[in-house]
């Protein structure tokens, strides 16, 4: 499976944020999307998720020689600030989610099995989501995105505010998910991108640029990324 982004352009008034982007993402990989503040990473995600209109561009999903436009149900979007319906308990949110996706679920697990998988404690499962900690909300957001099993998962700095234990748990979850999926992971933290992601993609000056990391040590790769960003920014 491949996600092909073609001629994507997006401007805010006179500022061109994404300039005729052409890029192909492949299944089974986690892509680390790196860029400076304001470089357009979230805008890129918002375009893919159809949250904002864009001037031009197509998104195509190519699977086994067959291609079709990318649909909403193909995408899961995990935001840096977790969004969950605060009036429901964790269990109720999962029940609702499983109810409306039941015809699509291949592997049916019980609600508690899902909670176990995401390391959500028994005593927290029947608490209102408004009383969940930041990390727990984040886990719930990730969990429903996993259950929906989208082909493409967009992750907008999802680990930035998590404690080290939860962050490590989430990293393992993401690694376990990459098979049969395309994961695009946006972050500011270079170490995180290098340790988690299979490919590094820079978004700078409105274009996507893949960094070839073959035969490079982590330090050499870091230097290369910094050089690329510095070079670009000084243009």
């Amino acid at each position, binding site marked *: 499976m491949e996600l092909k982004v073609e001629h994507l352009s997006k401007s805010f*008034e*006179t500022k061109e944020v994404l300039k005729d982007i052409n890029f192909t993402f492949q299944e089974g990989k986690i892509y680390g999307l790196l860029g400076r503040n304001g470089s357009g990473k979230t805008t890129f995600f918002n375009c893919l*998720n*159809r*949250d*904002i209109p864009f001037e031009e561009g197509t998104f195509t999903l190519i699977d086994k020689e067959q291609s079709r436009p990318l649909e*909403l*149900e193909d*995408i*899961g*979007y995990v*935001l840096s600030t977790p*969004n*969950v*319906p*605060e*009036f*429901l*308990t964790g269990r*109720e949110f999962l*029940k*609702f989610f499983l*109810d*409306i*996706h039941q015809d699509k679920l291949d592997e049916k697990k019980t609600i508690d099995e899902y909670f176990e998988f995401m390391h959500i404690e028994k005593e927290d499962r*029947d*608490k*209102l989501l*408004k*009383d969940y900690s930041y990390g727990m909300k984040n886990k719930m957001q990730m969990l*429903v995105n996993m259950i*929906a099993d*989208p082909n493409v998962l967009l992750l907008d700095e999802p680990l930035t505010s998590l404690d080290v234990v939860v962050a490590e748990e989430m990293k393992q979850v993401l690694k376990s998910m990459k098979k049969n999926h395309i994961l695009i992971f946006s972050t500011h933290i270079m170490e995180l991108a290098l340790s988690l992601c299979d490919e590094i993609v820079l978004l700078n000056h409105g274009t996507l640029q893949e960094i070839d990391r073959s035969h490079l040590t982590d330090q050499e790769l870091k230097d290369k990324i910094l050089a690329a960003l510095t070079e670009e920014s000084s243009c």
Partner: protein
Amino acid sequence: MLETFIQSFQVKNTYRVNTFIYSLKQIPILGKVFKDALYSNYALKLLGTLVSIMTEILSIFLGKFLYITIMVFAVITLYPGTSTVNFVHVLFFLTLIGALMNTYMFNPTKDKYYAMFILKMDSKEYTLSNYYYTMLKVIVGFLPFTCLFGILSKVPLWICILFPFFIAGCKILANVYFLNKYKRTGIITDENHPVKWVWAWTAIFLILAYALPYFGIVLPLPVACIFMVLITIGGIFGVFYLQKFTLYREIYKIILTNDNMNLASYKTTEISKQTVLNRIDVDTNITSHKHGYAYFNDLFVKRHSNLLLKSAKKISLTIFAIIVAMTGIFFVVPAFAEKTNQILLVMLPYFVFIMYCINRGQEVAKAMFMNCDHSMLTYGFYRKPKVILNLFKERLKSVIIINLLPAFVLALGLVFLLAITGGTTQFIDYPILFFSILAMSVFFSVHHLVLYYLLQPYNAESETKSATYGIANGLTYLFCYYMLKIQIPIFTFGCLTIVFSILYCFVSLFLVYRYAPKTFHLKN
């Protein structure tokens, strides 16, 4: 202190100017032409400053003019006795209410937060300089109108001149009391959440202000004057207390971070979001046996019963009480029954406005966004046409049912009132009256929900981003207000209402089914 005041005034002015430019950008269609560069446009900044100055001048005079005209001058014309003592009496007692209800100092506003917590201005200097400015505005703003309307009411000029100083004195003394109370007990006063005794104080002085003169009982002029002079002098001494007081930052840290506010991300939208969030019923024993979307919506309604069901029940009870009270009055004053009958026969349009006021649709839509759609709209599946429409159907049912409760009580009550006040020559008027009230209720329920789905006005930060939504709501209000002036027989207006409501519902539902999947998303 002067420097702090000038800085804070500049901040406030910049905020107003930018709000003015921002509102230009929000005008439908025209707004798209304006670019962000407008914020640096010198001419527009100048225009914005002029608007800001005019707003400041209006804030000094307009409110006070309306207050004296409507709350005092217009009312005393209804009373027997001399207007002089009535004017002094009413304004005297209203001032005692205003001193507690409108303190300025204990009103948590965003400009205070920006100044003291974001811009790190000295809390005492900021508070006092702005407070003195506010008191100056009170004196300057009231003076022309206490003189004008006082002289028209034959009040001696020196009392007219004394009044603004008395008003400022009352406010200062009230603040001294609240500051001292905090110092002694640690109990803070929040102007937006008056405690019970303040409400009782308000009720008592409202009765003293307005009811007593009706029976010819007023505060003797010399007594009022002695109090006014004493309080004015007390106010001057109060200033010394305000100057000596040091705990302003401590107080504002509490006021601006109470359960209505979120200091970490303070915004007006954050306040309203937090307010709606606090309305979630925390009882997790509340359950639902439904499935899918119905389950989701059922839990939403049950967990927001405080906001939705309880207020509908309260409105229903109030309507019931009014109808019982009116029935009682009919027996005591038969002429009132006759008049009511005449009114009911031709004033059905009036109830369009009443139904608009009691309909919970707009508040329900807001709660839906703040506590539910705000988070759910970030999920792709939630924006699929099938999900949007399924949930819309569930919500519509709930909103209609919630609003039908008070509508049913009102409809039945009106039929009852019409019957006992002499009835009507046409029997058909009874069912028409009954069903037209229900139709209005359904109409407003559909209207608010459809507007929300078609114009979803909020962005991810819960800020309202659609001027069109505001305009549509404004037009709805104007339409309903206009109805107050129309007099049409029950049969004609009732039939028109029922037919219009049915047609409107069909058209709106069609529009939602056609366009909501495209329009129902977070605004950018």
